[in-house]
């Protein structure tokens, strides 16, 4: 009973701010800024078309999708084979190299974003989505390596042996046997990468050009000297968070594992 009550309280605390945001996105300016919190109101639909159509925020949804999607795909394409090597091969300095991957995941963006900007400027990629995609790949790549190593390790070695008996080369075995077995883990990893990239702020803020701004970068643009447009801010924030919530439900089984870099199996 106590537990149930606590749980309810915890859920209320955890979810109310989001509900409030959701409600604000449907409130008129008068309701949103009222002295006493307004819980019941006549909803208005003006903010969504206003911000996404009139203010041109719609393309940002596309940009966010492209950046998150491509950086996820890239991280998987490069990271999954590397993870396989870590799971199945032995070589000198392997664990140190593995640790190196972790440190890259932990790199504070603030400490590398300036040189990254200069580098992308030098190679002519600045202002393109490519630059953000690559920047996001840096932290996603190590996440992939860390998570996927665990998933590969979960596959019994006997399967490898059986595949070799069947005449598969190592590369063939990886592609035709192990990858399909690791597919569920890969899906979970992909979703987590997508979320991290979608939510990222600082790299995108510095590296991206006007036409390729992502949603998170677009939100502060609504804080104007003429009064923050809370309804529109909320509308953008809702759109920026809804896919994440959907995804969270999709992969909840593997999230703990992902968030602890494969250390804890959820």
């Amino acid at each position, binding site marked *: 009973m*106590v*537990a*149930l009550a*606590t*749980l309810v309280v*915890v*859920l209320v605390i*955890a*979810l109310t*701010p*989001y509900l*409030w*945001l959701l409600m604000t996105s449907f409130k008129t300016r008068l309701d949103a*800024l009222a*002295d*006493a919190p307004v819980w019941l109101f006549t909803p208005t639909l003006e903010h969504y078309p206003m911000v996404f159509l009139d203010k041109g925020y719609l393309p940002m949804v596309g940009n966010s999708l492209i950046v998150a999607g491509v950086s996820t795909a890239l991280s998987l394409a490069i*990271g999954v*084979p*590397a993870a396989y090597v870590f799971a199945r091969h032995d*070589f000198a300095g392997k664990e140190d*190299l593995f*640790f190196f991957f972790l440190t890259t995941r*932990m*790199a*504070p963006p*603030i*400490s*590398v974003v*300036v*040189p*990254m900007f*200069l580098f992308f400027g030098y190679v002519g990629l600045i202002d393109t989505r490519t630059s953000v995609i*690559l920047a996001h*790949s*840096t932290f996603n*790549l190590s996440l992939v*390596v860390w998570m996927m190593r665990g998933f590969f390790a979960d596959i019994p070695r006997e399967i490898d042996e059986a595949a070799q008996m069947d005449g598969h*080369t*190592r*590369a063939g075995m*990886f592609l035709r046997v192990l990858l399909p077995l690791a597919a569920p883990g890969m899906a979970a990893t992909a979703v987590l990468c997508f979320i991290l990239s*979608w*939510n990222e702020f600082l790299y995108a803020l510095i590296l991206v050009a006007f036409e390729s701004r992502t949603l*998170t970068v677009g939100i502060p643009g609504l804080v104007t000297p003429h009064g923050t447009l809370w309804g529109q801010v909320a509308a953008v*924030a809702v759109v*920026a*968070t809804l896919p994440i*919530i959907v995804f*969270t439900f999709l992969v*909840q089984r593997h*999230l*703990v*594992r992902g*968030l*602890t*870099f494969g*250390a*804890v*199996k*959820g």
Partner: protein
Amino acid sequence: MNLSRWGSGILDRGVGPLFLVPALLLLVVLLVGPFLYMVGVSFTDLSFALPGHDGNFVGFENYRRLMREDPVFWQSFGTTLVFVSGVVSVEFGLGFALALLLFHHVQRRRFVLTLLLIPMMLAPVAVGLMWKLMLHGEFGMLTHYLRELGLLGPQTALLGNHDLVLPTVMLVDVWEWTPFVTLVFLAGLLSLPREPFEAAVMDGARPWQVFRDITVPLLRPIIALVLLLRGIDAFKEFDKVFILTGGGPGTATELISIYAWRVNFRNWDLGYGAVCAFMVYLVVLILCAVSYKAIYWTEGRAVK
């Protein structure tokens, strides 16, 4: 025929390096390169703002300045330590307690757990704005109810008060990350072997004793892991606090990453900014090295 077999043999033996190289290449070009560049810049006077500061070598001048002449940096370092130790200990305590509670009593956990995930999955920028809306001194929903309850004076606001603002942003972080701690501990608790518990109950141990003598020791690696992962992330905190307060009032919430941002993107003092950024990275690296071991303890593998 022979040739192709030979070829695939090479390929076969080459799988290891072949599979690793792209990943390493990407990281070296995009992360290690810039990082080394930053370390290099930290020995120069490079500034986008001041004329003549084109990256002339100045030796350890920037480091000396950091150690000797910049009280603001050390103040923000101190603020960061308060922030990190505060949020990590509260999140740890709350999250652990919640996990124990849920583990023993709640039946259909999955759905509930997923709901709990929502706060930490939202974009930090959105979290910052969301709480700014809730905590606004005039029309903030939470402010209103706190005042109704008499917990907050009519002339006080959580984000505008020098003494209350740091605890407030810490609470927002607690809101965001406590579920993470809970979930990790739940997963840990579920993975524990049953035998020691059954044996203890047979021996007539009280719940508190079971907890102290069996649960905690078994969970030790996870405890270490949680503390360190949260510690690293809290140390890097930027987006949320930046949106909520911008570091103020005064320097009340100026975390180290916000200070580094200021030096780099306000003053464009990149040489000195590189030193500040490097300090952030250094602390994170140290925490990382420690957490690496913790993770290996959990996996039950020894570090070779």
